[in-house]
């Protein structure tokens, strides 16, 4: 350990308190906490929206809402869950843990960090405001195009689309600022002696994520800007009459959209191995292999986008190229799976809640990934495309692969962050309820898709009734089980059994060398890695 103090702060004398503390804070833990809280709240909101959808789909016929409102709920559900629940959660962990894991005094650009967070609430407002306005007879509600903004529908749409466009702009700025901050931190703030190839896996996952964000988010911003000018300033980017092409938007959107799915999961792929090694009590297998796989996935992710619109009509060579390149992504992921399982292999495993989630996560994400692989087949995709099969696929990747991964991370780091142990009993219960009801919600949707039920429809033919009923009932169970999660977190933050510094027997990494909760200024002395 070196003995030189590296963080010199001014907060000591005039540390604002109360609301001002949170508004103005430049402290990476405060900001991390804000990100995580925001994420949890938005997860509940987005979930409640989709519960509305599931309720409407409980049986054939229009029960609760008219079709426009239905379409609005879908799109906003997706945007909230992806941009306001999953991404902020990952960023929250990054803020909390990266400085701790690499022995840094704080994030490299604290004020920027604070701005990055405070861009989120405004965008959340922009996303949901149209609903409120509609109540007062202003405009006709939020965007009703699904989260994919496809023109010409989005050119035709009302002011909800404009709100969503600007929401995306703010979210984009926020993500880019966050990425800049993380890249800088990882390049410039690592403890002496911690070479890149000694960084924790989570840091690596986030480094690639940040690169992808910087490369693709601006493209999305550009695309929606063209949409805006098509709507209001008479340009013809997306209409044939002027020589444009609606499909061009799909190219631009998915050039962002596909990397986005790895942006969402790379941080998770980062900390899952850390959880596995902790609870298997043996160092993770194939660190190098995993890092290289991350690079491979990052590189591949930006060259496969067109697999989202095979049915839009493309020349055969293009179809074949996008099919094969998409399939190629399964190779680095196979490597990751191999490493994860080899890490557990011959360890001394114990199954506390984080480990339960991690193991369940591997299985469920496996299903999501493998079904993704068959979606990549152009011919079969003509059937799968925009059917509930796709919906099931991406909930296995997004909810199981994303949210459940985040839950694993939450249970893993919560004691470190709060200094208290959460209730194992409730945690385990939460896992079982989530895992079971999740499968009961989405397995039926695979069969619905195969049977030919299109997505984004408020009402359906009679032969789809049974599966939808099951799915809805399960969805509500799934939703309610999340209240356990909320309760467990809140009580744990309030108090409970004191957590040790190491928390988990055999936990590896710098964050576990600090007291729980860590002091306000993480490393006033930067450790030296040998």
């Amino acid at each position, binding site marked *: 350990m070196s003995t030189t103090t590296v963080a010199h702060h001014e907060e000591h004398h005039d540390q604002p308190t109360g609301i001002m503390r949170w508004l103005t804070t430049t402290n990476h833990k405060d900001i991390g906490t804000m990100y995580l809280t925001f994420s949890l709240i938005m997860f509940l909101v987005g979930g409640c929206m989709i519960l509305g959808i599931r309720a409407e789909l409980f049986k054939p016929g229009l029960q609760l809402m008219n079709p426009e409102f239905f379409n609005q709920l879908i799109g906003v559900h997706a945007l909230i869950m992806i941009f306001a629940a999953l991404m902020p959660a990952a960023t929250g962990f990054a803020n909390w843990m990266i400085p701790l894991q690499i022995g840094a005094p704080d994030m490299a650009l604290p004020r920027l960090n604070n701005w990055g967070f405070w861009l989120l609430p405004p965008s959340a407002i922009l996303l949901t405001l149209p609903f409120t306005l509609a109540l007062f007879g202003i405009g006709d509600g939020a965007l009703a195009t699904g989260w994919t903004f496809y023109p010409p529908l989005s050119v035709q749409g009302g002011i909800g689309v404009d709100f969503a466009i600007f929401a995306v702009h703010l979210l984009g700025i926020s993500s880019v600022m966050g990425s800049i901050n993380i890249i800088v931190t990882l390049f410039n703030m690592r403890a002496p002696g911690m070479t890149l190839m000694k960084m924790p896996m989570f840091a690596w996952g986030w480094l690639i994520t940040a690169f992808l964000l910087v490369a693709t988010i601006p493209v999305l911003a550009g695309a929606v800007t063209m949409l805006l000018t098509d709507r209001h300033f008479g340009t013809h980017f997306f209409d044939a009459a002027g020589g444009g092409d*609606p499909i061009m938007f799909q190219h631009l959107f998915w050039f962002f959209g596909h990397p986005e799915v790895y942006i969402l999961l790379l941080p998770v792929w980062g900390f899952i191995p850390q959880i596995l090694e902790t609870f298997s009590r043996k160092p993770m297998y194939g660190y190098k292999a995993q890092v290289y796989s991350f690079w491979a996935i990052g590189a591949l992710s930006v060259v496969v986008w067109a697999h989202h619109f095979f049915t839009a009509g493309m020349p055969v060579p293009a179809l074949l190229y996008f099919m094969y390149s998409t399939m190629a992504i399964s190779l680095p992921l196979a490597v990751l799976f191999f490493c994860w399982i080899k890490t557990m*292999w011959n360890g001394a495993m114990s199954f506390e809640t984080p480990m339960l989630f991690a193991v369940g996560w591997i299985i469920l994400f496996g299903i999501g990934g493998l079904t993704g692989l068959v979606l990549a087949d152009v011919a*079969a995709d003509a059937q799968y495309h925009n059917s509930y099969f796709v919906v099931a696929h991406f909930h296995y990747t997004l909810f199981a692969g994303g949210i459940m991964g985040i839950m694993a991370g939450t249970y893993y780091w919560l004691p470190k962050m709060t200094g208290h142990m959460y209730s194992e009993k409730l945690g385990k219960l939460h896992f079982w309820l989530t895992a079971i009801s999740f499968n009961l919600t989405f397995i039926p949707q695979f069969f619905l898709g195969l049977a030919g039920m299109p997505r984004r429809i408020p009402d359906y033919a009679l032969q789809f009734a*049974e599966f939808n009923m099951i799915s809805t009932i399960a969805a509500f169970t799934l939703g309610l089980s999340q209240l356990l999660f909320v309760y467990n977190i809140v009580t744990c933050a309030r108090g409970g059994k004191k957590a040790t510094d190491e928390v988990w027997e055999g936990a590896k990494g710098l964050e576990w060398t600090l007291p729980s909760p860590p002091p306000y200024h993480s490393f006033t002395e930067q450790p030296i890695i040998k």
Partner: protein
Amino acid sequence: MQVLRKIGLSFAAMLISISAYADYSWNFPEPATPMALDTLHVHNKFMMIIGVIFVAVLAVMIYSIFAHRKSKGNKPVTDKAPSTAVEIFWTLIPFAILLLIDFVIMGIPAYHSVVMMEDTRDKATMVIKITGSQWRWQYEYMDGDAKGIKFVSNLTTTSDQMHNLAEKGEHYLLEVDNHLVLPVGEKVRVLMTSTDVLHNWWVPQFGSSRVAVPGFIRETWVQVERPGVYRGQCKELCGKGHGYMPIVVDALPMAEYKTWVATKKEELEKASAGADKEWTKEDLIATGKGVYEKNCAVCHQVTGAGLPPAFPPLTGSKIANGPIFGADGKYLKDSHLDRVLNGIRVMPSWKAVLNDTEIAAVITYERNALGNSVGDVLQPSQVKAARQ
């Protein structure tokens, strides 16, 4: 470990609860075209493959979760990265297998079906054009003796059924007034386009689906092997009516198809003849009512009350009560006729969808019913003239 047992159990539980029901399906519906058959084979094969992979990967994990527990007193070993040539060779083997799976076992059949799917033209014996618009399909026969046949196909499910006020019929939401009729065994080249937003013409049993892009022509093909009625839906989100633009195809043996063509042609003759004769106000209003409830009521509602702000009411609306023709005898900009013919923003253009009689009838109806009483009559001939 319990993870898996529980998930397994719940899955099994679900299967049982389902199989209690009469009609459910676990896979693609029975294919009716070569393409659908091919797709089904590819799909089954791939499902097998990923099934095997999944089970294999899982088995290893289950074993490990069993055997390597702390509670079982298992001592963690420290593994070392493969170092010797032999070890590296053995780690490369699985990788080779995966390559084989991805690009040979899965890749080659995929290649063939793609080529087959995209070859829309050669050996095609007839061409039809499918036009999507909010929210109905329009079919046009482009060649052969059916050339010139052109009609719109609307959902016929009543709004009472949708709002659970009436018993739902067998083909709830999958029934239309005019079916697309195709000869059995012929390779039909399909031109796909749209008048407003993206749509996607999808009949699961045909295995072909193409996005209809406004201003572009996309192509696909179908060759129905067995006579019968086939149903499908639009599967690209296209606004509030997305769930309400189904597809119904009648596949008829050649002979029957020919007779159908003949009769259909006559009907259309009559209709266009109707455009030239003088109509009485009553007849127009009567026909108009039907046209209105089929096409306009989705947004403007049966009563004409509309769904403000998105869909304005017609009852007492400025346009529906204002003048249609100017002093020069030409129809005015933003007049009732202009709106219906050309549309604006969310209001679609009906030029291509409705014929002169229908347009004249529906406008006359809107002006003299739904709480409006302008009293004037719009003749099909005037609409015909206005199209020029």
